[in-house]
């Protein structure tokens, strides 16, 4: 495995003001794009996030963002942050535990380390996390939701990837750099992934396909040893030996934090926003994977676009007090 050094982001400890124009919750593409635009609108902006990059960190190489070819996901998050900082946005690496609407229309934000901030507008960009399979044995060691993190541990092993979207194909490519064999297990014989991803995977000799099968159970004493599969057409049960199983069957939105504000959501928990990123709560905006937008195309480029739009709406709201 090639050794690399990158400076990344070295966090600085500084005292942060209590009052802000905008607080952005979440540091993925939507959050940092919003921060960049807020900064350019000269809004005093704080991002509170557990990590830099959000789900970008789960991506090995991103090659569908215009102008940035073949960039590492985690590197991209750092570039977004740096760009937002150029216009004055500050980052606090903590988690938001509560958001309250105050009688004067402002918001109070509390972090896990007890810090309290006030903001005129909030942009929720908390993103999503990987959906679980919901089958017996999923808690066994060797079941992973982050190929980028865990692939090096599966050197020369046999692994499976469940799913048929871009994430599954990305995972398979990352795993193929280390593992001996990678099996993409998918419930249909067609893929939701972009055709270019499918073509690349088919060219990779380590990647093989197990189609029209769903995982019914994961077996093992201490770690994954075997998966039980069911054929979606015939119902036939089979099993295969695996050392690890990577789950890439979609995303669930991380919208828990705003439930107490009575924000409208769809049945899956995505925050409902209008085309300007506004929610039903005055002063509260949302962008990226946590929302219902845009046509279900959950990409870096769409999240970044939504972040910019939400920032613009926050700017207009703060300036005019109109919602």
């Amino acid at each position, binding site marked *: 495995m090639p050794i690399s050094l990158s400076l990344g982001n070295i966090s600085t400890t500084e005292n942060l003001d209590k009052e802000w124009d905008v607080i952005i919750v979440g540091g993925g593409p939507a959050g940092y794009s919003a921060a960049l635009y807020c900064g350019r609108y000269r809004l005093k902006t704080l991002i509170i996030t557990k*990590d830099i990059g959000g789900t970008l960190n789960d991506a090995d190489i991103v090659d569908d963002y215009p102008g940035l070819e073949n960039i590492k996901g985690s590197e991209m998050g750092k570039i977004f942050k740096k760009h937002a900082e150029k216009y004055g946005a500050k980052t606090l690496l903590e988690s938001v535990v509560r958001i309250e609407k105050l009688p004067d229309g402002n918001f109070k934000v509390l972090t896990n380390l007890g810090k309290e901030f006030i903001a005129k507008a909030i942009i929720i960009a908390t993103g999503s996390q990987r959906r679980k399979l919901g089958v017996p044995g999923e808690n066994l060691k060797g079941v992973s939701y982050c190929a980028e993190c865990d692939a090096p*541990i599966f050197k020369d092993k046999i692994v499976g990837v469940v799913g048929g979207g871009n994430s599954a194909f990305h995972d398979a490519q990352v795993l193929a750099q280390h593992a001996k064999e990678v099996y993409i297990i998918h419930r249909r014989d067609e893929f939701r992934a972009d055709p270019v991803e499918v073509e690349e995977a088919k060219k990779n000799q380590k990647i093989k396909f197990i189609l029209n099968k769903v995982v019914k159970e994961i077996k093992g004493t201490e770690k994954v040893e075997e998966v039980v599969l069911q054929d979606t057409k015939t119902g036939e049960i089979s099993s295969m030996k695996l050392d690890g199983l990577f789950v890439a069957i979609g995303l669930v939105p991380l919208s828990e934090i705003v439930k107490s504000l009575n924000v409208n959501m769809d049945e899956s928990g995505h925050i409902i926003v209008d085309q300007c990123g506004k929610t039903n709560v005055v002063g509260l905006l949302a962008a990226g994977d946590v929302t219902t937008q845009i046509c279900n195309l959950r990409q870096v480029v769409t999240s970044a676009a939504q972040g910019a739009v939400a920032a613009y709406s926050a700017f207009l709201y703060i300036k005019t007090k109109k919602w």
Partner: protein
Amino acid sequence: MAEEILSEEDKQTLKEMFDKSLKNPVEITVYLDEKNNKETSDFARKIGELLMQINDKIKFEFLDAYDPKVEEEMKSKNLLIDKYGNRRGPIFVFKKYPGIIYYGLPSGEEFPIFLEDIIHVSNEHFDIDGATAKKLALINEPLDIYVFVTPTCPYCPYMTHHSHQFAMVKNNIRGIMIESYEFPEFAEKFKVYGVPHIAIIDKDGNTITEWEGAIAEMEIFANKIKESLEKVSK
């Protein structure tokens, strides 16, 4: 002249950062294993040489882990892990804070944390809030925090950072990052199949608790250690 392991631009950024932020000298000992981890031991030397070149407050000492004297020293400092495979390096230890330890290269996602460690040590600055400090004050027995990582894991550095901060404020705690890829037998012994994988080890070498996954919140991490110690003592 160190081989180019960092771009000119990054070197310049580092130089400016270190010139601005380093106060006292920082000494780091690196134990090298040129028998079993030659590639990474060579790279460890390059990292050290580069950083010394960038700022003269940073000092590295390179030791051969198979030199009998060094072997003795490693034994006395509880750094030899022969029971977990035959690899002895590269291991990085901060001299002033010997609880800040890296088994394997602080490369990839871990490199920024290594740089932060240097700055923290140089300034004797702790990045710990009051609530976490209170939890740590209640932990007084010697213990090791093993943080198994991979260079590509973006969630791992938080755990390395936290464990090293704990080691800075409490000299009974050692925060040990272990690069699973460079120490595969060590990782195998602890059944590491996902990272970050954390193991809390008592003074007799027993595992008190272990889990998989990052805990970004320092206070929750400290509390988890405290509670698992309390459970064992009951």
